[in-house]
């Protein structure tokens, strides 16, 4: 990542700006190597990734951030086919300097015949994770409830069969009255069960 004659005042200003914003700005050079824009120290999370990949040895960007591997393949295609624009990558998580999880996002930029790779902290990642967490927890809970409802259907069907069988046997008038009440309650239960969510395709309860 050495200085090149193409470094301009604008690059220097941009480098200061991205340092304040906790972004790493790299220019992709001919041959596939990258150089950091400007002379500002990169963020701690960036240098730490290089150190952890292989302390004391030369490390490539992909060795330091393996999750960039698939994005860089897409970025190469983008850079070859785009004169001006950006391509956003998916978030990836690395260990932060404090041992916490740090979410980063790569962006490929094509501009004035030059190709850049920005790596930035994902804004609002914690909120996004919280929303997905809640949504998925609710979906899993819903699935569990639906499974429990479905588990009721088999004993309900057996109970209905028993009641039907009773109806065909010799019963005293008082017993018939009790049976009629039981049938009525079963009908109400059936209507309620029919209104409840059913298991989706492919889901089968135990014992089926």
């Amino acid at each position, binding site marked *: 990542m050495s200085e090149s004659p193409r470094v301009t005042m604008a690059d220097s200003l941009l480098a200061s700006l991205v340092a304040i914003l906790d972004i790493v700005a790299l220019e992709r050079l001919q041959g596939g190597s990258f150089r950091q824009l400007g002379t500002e120290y990169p963020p701690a999370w960036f240098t730490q990734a290089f150190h952890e990949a292989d302390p004391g040895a030369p490390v490539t960007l992909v060795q330091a951030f393996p999750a960039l591997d698939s994005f860089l393949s897409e970025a190469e295609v983008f850079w070859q086919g785009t004169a001006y624009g950006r391509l956003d990558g998916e978030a*990836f998580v690395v260990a932060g300097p404090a041992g916490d999880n740090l*979410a980063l996002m790569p962006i490929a930029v094509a501009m004035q015949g030059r190709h850049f790779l920005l790596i930035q902290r994902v804004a609002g*990642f914690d909120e*996004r994770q919280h929303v*997905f967490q809640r949504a998925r927890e609710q979906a899993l809970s819903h*699935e569990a409830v639906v499974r429990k409802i479905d588990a009721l259907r088999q004993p309900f069907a057996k109970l209905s069969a028993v009641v039907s069988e009773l109806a065909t046997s010799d019963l005293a008038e008082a017993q018939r009255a009790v049976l009629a009440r039981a049938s009525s309650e079963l009908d109400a239960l059936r209507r309620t069960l029919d209104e409840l969510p059913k298991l989706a395709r492919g*889901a*089968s309860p135990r014992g089926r």
Partner: protein
Amino acid sequence: MIQKKICMLGATGVGKTSLVSRFVLSMFSDTYLTTIGVKVDKKTLSVDGADITLMLWDIYGEDEFQTVRTSYLRGAAGYILVADGTRQRTLDTARELQSKAMAVVGNVPFVLVLNKADLAGEWRVDDRALWKMAEDGWTLVKTSAKTGAGVEEAFLKLTTKVAAS
């Protein structure tokens, strides 16, 4: 040093992250924490005297909220399909993801892991479907990220297949 990219694929909440955590760090937490994006961990295994470093791509789960981007799979030498033995639907998702993966990386080795074996009383996967998959040549391993049962075996089986391919 041989390095191989291995992707963890499966529905939401099947235990992909827990399996990686158990395998790499020998740790397990009962708290479910959803994965956003991807996290890459690595672990070196020795197979037939050769050290192979697995780059384990723990990719977010497939569900109604997010579909797995196939670009994550590019360059994978193998993958682990994870299903939750207590949720039959996750087996269907595993099958769909296998088709997706095959379209991107071709016929690379994979292992189907049926996780949460510690919840045997709540097991709901259809045994006939599992037999059919085994007959079709799928390698199936029952695991529990919670107890650690089968976890090493699953990764070792895949690594052996990857090394031989």
